[in-house]
């Protein structure tokens, strides 16, 4: 896992959360957003094949 990528993704999620739910709520969500960033990064770095259509 690339720590820098996760930090960047978490910051982006924090920005989106502030925009959607306000600064206070986004702050409450901070730990969950970091965890979400880790999970999304693990998905983003997994190689999928073209035939893996949902």
């Amino acid at each position: 896992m690339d720590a820098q990528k996760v930090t960047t993704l978490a910051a982006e999620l924090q920005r989106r959360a502030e925009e959607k739910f306000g600064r206070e709520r986004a702050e409450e969500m901070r730990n969950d957003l970091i965890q979400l960033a880790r999970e999304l990064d693990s998905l983003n770095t997994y190689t999928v094949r073209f035939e893996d259509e949902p």
Partner: protein
Amino acid sequence: MSLENLTMTEAVSEIRSGALSPLEYAQALLARVDAVEGRVQAWTTIDREAVLSEARLMEAEARKKHFRGPLHGIPVGIKDIFYTKNLRTTMGSTAFADFVPAYDASVVKKLKHAGALIMGKCVTTILVFLDPGPTRNAWNTNHTPGGSSSGSAAAVGARMCPVSIGSQTVGSVGRPAAYNGVVSIMPTQSRVDMTGAFPLAWSLDHVGVFSRSAADVEVLLSSLSEAPLPSRSGPSHHKFRIGLASDFFFEKADIESQGKIEELAGRLSGSGFQVTVADLPSIFGMHPAILRTIVRSEAASTHQQLIRTNPEAYGPKLRDLVQLGELIDASTYLRARRIRREYQRQMMRLFEHVDVVLTPAAPGPAPAGIGATGDPVMQAPWTLADFPTMTLPLAVASNGLPLGIQLSAAPLHEGMLLEAAKAIEEVIGFRAQPNL
């Protein structure tokens, strides 16, 4: 034997022979509800007059040897997310407190067609997620019954009905079954139609069944199934190949559960089963990220209107889930769905050398308190794979609460899974009952 202790197949047999009337059976179970419901709180709605009136009709039919189907006169509890015509369906939420559907969910239609008596609606957690309802564990009311099918599992565990219907998106059938000492199955998603059920995450939502024996599950599932259950051909049950998935699942289980499973594995080997170690594929570690991304995204879509119009109807855990889901973009969601396909493919290889995979059904007995519903960690990998999974009660832990095992098979292999479960159930010989 008192009527509330009859398994469903025993009750079916008594009704068919004329030894038990559907009315007498319904009255006995309603009396059991009167005796224990104040402590267990498994039901949201029971329309007694409707139940007794329908039971009278079924009794008259049974006297004439007219049976509507294989479940004639069997009272069934229905999780309160499945629509029931003219019977309140609340989804465990104030937002639907007075909602009365105009039609039956597909499973309810099938149950009625098979002759079942709809006994009432069983408590679900709030909108089918982790925020608990009032239900308590059937074995010790100071402990959680699990969730989200809390009432369905506790009602069967507490002998208020012989069978019930639940649903599972992550671990909402297998976990409450283990905590309440009952048998359950989560079939392959396409096996049983979910139409008319309130969703959480539609690509992962499964119908589930609770009972007190594997034979009951078989009869009930046959009545609900979209296609006949294939039976296992080949060698006798003593040759079932059982894969013990120990590493991840044992790490998550307490010492007592590990010991009981190891002891069972020895007894199964001694009874002629082939017990080997099942190695999990390399992609296994991805399952939490795949599952959570799908559940969050789909739940956000399910709830995007309701959470804005009825924010007070949401528990904190569901609100967190939905709001996190709103931050996930479409391409990431679809990527998770694509990786899920690869996960299913790799997990299928488990069944190249074994018929069923055996794991603990929960990390331990039901946790104390009713503020949370326990950990679905044992079910999540199988729900994501969409592999049919059963729970069987195994033993009573040192704190007096039940422990369970979980059996999983390849997709649509419910017939074989049930045969294996019946054979393993015989070896386990679980006879304990809650003392409410």
